[in-house]
């Protein structure tokens, strides 16, 4: 089994992919669009280097500067199929060029870690990290996921801790015709036991000083009340996603105020990366990155079943200036050989 880490890089100056379209409220478009555009950019950026005519010889600067140091040696080389492309755009350069492979982890695209980091002292920022657990994974794996995701973010931003870690559990939403309805419906969503079982791993990160405060997403009043009785470190934030943010269910407002929990707005969807979406992103199709083998023919890329594991979103805002300096996503998937 290999792990695949997808990343968007800093999307804050990434152009149209970050802009909410009318009617696209509450979707995963930001994630999927910015992943796509980062794949495309990486393919273009490294295409020059893949072409032996463009950059002479073995001393490619990419190899020389390769932070991971694997020298591209361990990944499968896939033929580019030069020569038959006149009208269609050239196929993406083969896997090793714009991706990286290290210790069983495939980075799509490869990450230029020395470029990571923030412009000012870490204390100038509010860094918020939101981790999405997905329905496709076992609860027992969550402690590992949290650590993996957070350590990637810490590395990307070159910081030692983040201010807020919001955890999003699968199967939760705030839907309903009116706010009472949404709150009532929410009470039955998710899985209380799983959520409570997950929390100690998150609390541990706070104890270790990697996270200053904790948050959850999409908890209505009933779920929140139950959750609070089962955790040691209560969340300081509950992110809710309601169409009209003026219609906050009063019971939720009440409990939040009593418990000193900030109700923050978000516009993410909970089940942010489905298997199908992931396959489309990485697959051989017209909108895919061409990493995966064609399931029909069994040719042209990685083989196996692809299971999304987690998605993490990170945002670094210069606190006193309200400027978003860095925002991006990592997503993790397992490639299970059949």
């Amino acid at each position: 089994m290999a792990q695949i880490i997808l990343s968007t890089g800093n999307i804050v100056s990434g152009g149209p992919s970050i802009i909410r379209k009318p009617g696209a409220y509450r979707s995963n478009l930001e994630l999927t669009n910015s992943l796509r555009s980062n794949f495309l950019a990486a393919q273009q950026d490294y295409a020059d280097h893949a072409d032996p005519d463009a950059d002479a010889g073995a001393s490619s600067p990419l190899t020389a500067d390769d932070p991971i140091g694997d020298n591209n040696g361990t990944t499968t080389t896939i033929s580019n199929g030069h020569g038959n492309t006149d009208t269609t755009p050239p196929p993406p350069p083969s896997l090793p060029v714009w991706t990286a492979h290290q210790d069983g982890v495939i980075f799509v695209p490869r990450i230029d870690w020395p470029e990571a980091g923030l412009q000012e002292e870490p204390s100038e920022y509010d860094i918020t990290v939101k981790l999405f657990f997905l329905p496709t994974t076992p609860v027992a794996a969550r402690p590992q996921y949290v650590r993996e995701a957070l350590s990637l973010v810490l590395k990307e931003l070159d910081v030692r801790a983040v201010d807020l870690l919001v955890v999003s559990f699968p199967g939760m939403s705030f839907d309903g015709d009116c706010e009472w309805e949404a709150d009532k419906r929410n009470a039955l969503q998710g899985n209380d036991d799983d959520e409570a079982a997950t929390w100690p791993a998150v609390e541990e990160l706070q104890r270790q000083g990697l996270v200053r405060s904790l948050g959850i997403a999409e908890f209505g009043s009933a779920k929140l009340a139950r959750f609070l009785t089962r955790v040691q470190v209560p969340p300081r934030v509950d992110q809710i996603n309601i169409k009209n943010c003026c219609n906050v269910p009063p019971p939720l407002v009440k409990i939040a105020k009593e418990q000193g929990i900030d109700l923050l707005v978000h516009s993410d969807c909970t089940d942010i990366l489905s298997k199908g979406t992931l396959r489309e992103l990485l697959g051989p199709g017209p909108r895919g990155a061409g990493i995966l083998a064609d399931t029909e023919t069994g040719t042209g890329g990685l083989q196996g079943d692809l299971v999304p594991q987690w998605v993490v979103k990170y945002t670094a805002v210069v606190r006193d200036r309200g400027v978003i300096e860095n925002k991006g996503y990592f997503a993790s998937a397992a490639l299970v050989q059949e």
Partner: protein
Amino acid sequence: MGLLALGTALDWPDAKKQAQLVRAWGIKQLLEIWGKAKGKERDIMLWGDEVEYLVVTYAKDDPKVLLSLRQADILAALAGDKSLSAEGGGAPELQDVASSRTSKQLPVFHPEFGRFMLEATPGKPWGIDFKELLNVEPDMKLRRHIAKDHMLPNEYPITLTTFPRIGSPGVFTDPYYPVSGPRLRSQFVPDEIANPHIRFPTLAANIRSRRGRKVQVNVPVFRDENTPWPWKDPTVNYDMHQWPEDDDVRNGAAPDNFIHMDAMAFGMGSCCLQITFQAKNITEGRRMYDQLSPLGPILLALTAATPIYKGFLADTDVRWNQISKAVDDRTPEELGEKPLENDRWRIPKSRYASNSTYISTDPRLRPEYLDPDLVIDEDIKQQLLDGGMDDRLATHFAHLFIRDPIVIFNEDLQELDLSKTDHFENIQSTNWQHMRFKPPPADNSIGWRVEFRPMEIQVTDFENAAFAVFIVLITRVILSYDLNFYIPIVKVDENMETAHARDAVLEKTFHFRRNPFPVRPSRAAASRTPSGSSTPNPAFSSSRPPTPSGPVEDEYRRMSINEIINGTAYARRHESEADADAEEFPGLIPLVESYLDSVNVDVVTRCELATYLDLIRKRASGELWTAAKWIRHFVAQHPGYKRDSTVSEEVTKDLVGAIIAVGEREQRGEGFKGLDGTVPEIGRLLGGFRSGGGSRSRLRPEVVDMVADV
């Protein structure tokens, strides 16, 4: 209004002799502060708004509504209020205005040019904490409340850009003064219309004197069904012989079909909404200046509120050009009416005009965007370059410094004081462009600032807060997303003219940049750059190579304000005639929403901000009317209006009465619902917003209670 030091003001012939000295000293002071502050870093985001009021006298049973000239008394009452000043508010003594930045809370009041005006600012600058943005509207309401509290029972502070009948025949001020005084020499307004502080009448007199005749503020009249055509301004008196300038109208100063005005008070007596931001450093300040410049005309048209002048409906909706003409001190030679003999150059624009150049170090600023005919003082530019300033910024100041100082105090000419900026500010603050780039004060205690100046004041504090907060959010969006709104500066000028048209917000299109997004930096290129640079700079473009670029003309196209504000997709849904093939422009509001989606905002704050964005969205789409349109409609439906473009005392009184009624509702927190009976079509101006009262009205009361102190 800047520094109001007391002293002996020189009349123009004497002032003119000292102009070169003031400029020379001003440049030395500029270089001093630039040297001190150019490396200033990491200033936090602070901002302030300025709201200007007209003070009117109004009573239900009095047929006349008048401008109150009691500014000095009102300010004295505010200054004398011990409870106010204890909290840092009140009205500072005139000479203390510059030092009025205190850490305390209550609003501060300032004199303005018009003796019927007040200006109020928050007691301390705002930050960028989103919850703090919600304090703006209550603070504006508090300012109005305090102002009203220090007035006579029949006096009201109102936020109309201009008084509809200023300069009309008969009585329009309280107390009454006869027209044609020695300073303004206006046949329409008395000298006493201006703030009596020596700076203001001197400013007006010296502009007139330098110009060699009175200012000519001519606005096209709106032609209605019964408007005689050609229309001759019936209030112009061709038989006055008191001053040499009385010849102006006999020499064609008052053309047919134009409302003719002849004094600075017609322009500088306008109220506007100005926002000033502190930048992190000089580089960010320069960038903000440039990126906000193209937004100026858009926000001018969107806030249009000035359809009436001197008792007549105008064919324009905004105040801008009238102010421009009202302070236009250019001589006939500078205007190009006579060959250059005594003056140094022809000058295409008034001192009050849209920006003439860009100043940023952004590599995306293409030389083609700049005006090749920009007038600058080459000697001054050389001095600035010799002092170490870069070419672009030196050009900007060398352009501002083509102007003469207008008001010079003899006491300030004894010796050059480099611990002050008074001479620099003398020129800088009488260049009234639609953006202002403000260096730190002499003590370097605050940062580089940028002032956004084009917006018209709105009738309610709700609207004024909405536009102030919107601009603040736009600045954060520009910086976060590294947006690029550059178009050639002459196209910004053209847009500024376009913004004047009646209902330009719906009827006109504006040059605007098609793609505001930065080009994603190539990581291959990045990995080739030599390492060792201690500050990686991924989010900001300054380190990026310039984009390979096609013709500048391909970078922008005409867009409606709806499209600019709401985005192409939204505009397409709401305008059937919109070009279906047009490429997508994201829209400023969707950009702001994307920004808000990316930062931590609590639900109450987001709800309030959404209300502000909704107001602006609807103004841009035409779902709601601008104040200008609403006022036109108010006049048109009034039984006293004869469809002849004349806005009578009776109509004016009812209009002002309606505005006072709206203001009182807002003050009492009762909301605008139910006003439709007494204030025609108020729903078209304000929609359903604040229908049940003050802010947070869309939350149920129990929720408000619970979240009020969150």
